[in-house]
């Protein structure tokens, strides 16, 4: 029953990404030092990979906790 729900959600994610791309700057001319070199090396993807892994790990943990509580509730109501 929940399969129906995934599709619009991932469409939403895709749309959000698209908006981000569309909202990119038209050229930053300021001389403020940013981590451009870091980005050019592609190392930023390493950071993102690490962070997203941690985030997903935490999500899986919370989801399992959620399931456990749901099971407890069911057990309780069947008693």
């Amino acid at each position, binding site marked *: 029953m929940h399969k129906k*729900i995934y599709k619009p959600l991932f469409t939403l994610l895709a749309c959000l990404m698209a908006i981000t791309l569309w909202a990119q700057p038209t050229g930053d001319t300021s001389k403020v030092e940013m981590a451009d070199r870091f980005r050019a090396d592609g190392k930023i993807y390493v950071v993102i990979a690490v962070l997203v892994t941690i985030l997903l790990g935490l999500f899986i943990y919370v989801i399992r906790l959620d399931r456990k509580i749901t099971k407890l509730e069911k057990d309780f109501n069947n008693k």
Partner: protein
Amino acid sequence: MIRQKWWKILCGVLLVYTFIAGFLGSVPAKPILNETIRNLYFHVAMWFAMMVLFTVSVIYSVRYLRTNNHKYDIYALEYTRGGIVFGILGFTTGSIWARWTWGAFWSSDPKQLGAVIALLIYLAYLVLRNSMTDMDKRARIGAVYNIFAFAMLMPTIWIIPRLMESLHPGGMGNPALDTHDIDARMRVVFWPGAVPGWTLLGVWITTLRIRLAILTEKKEDLHPAPNQARKLRNA
């Protein structure tokens, strides 16, 4: 609503979006802040989540006083606890950010002050609740204080920046973030991604705690072991 799946998935999607777009998207180049401006997606979102959780807690306190339904008291308490967790996270991350941009962990910035006041008020709420043992009394007095404190906190947050600014004439020399600093590139990550994402995560964890608290209470009704159960709940 509490057991539905869609908003939990939405929470995950939004946070993954925040993490990816938050690091890949480009940001305005500001002196001093440099790349740390990306902290906006994580640090400032903590405050939004905190305020939402506290507001929900007050709504449940009002509902408790109107209905005397014990369930609403558990809701109010757990939403407050969730708000405090996010508040502490927001405060700590703010200090770290401030240390490497403004130069000190604590710079008596009005926003920092407001945050500390909010945390003290809600920690006092927990102290107040723990000072009573009678459940009905604890719920009712806790709800009254929660409403009173929230009503006082709102003007505080509004008043303090106005007073502090006049204490330091010439406007703060520090590059504090305000809405003018955030341009469209950051807004599309912050508003649709970070704020609702972190808030939903807070609500999710809070609902888990609520369900656990209700289960504990039901179990206690079946097998009463008053001292031990009460200790567990207060821990």
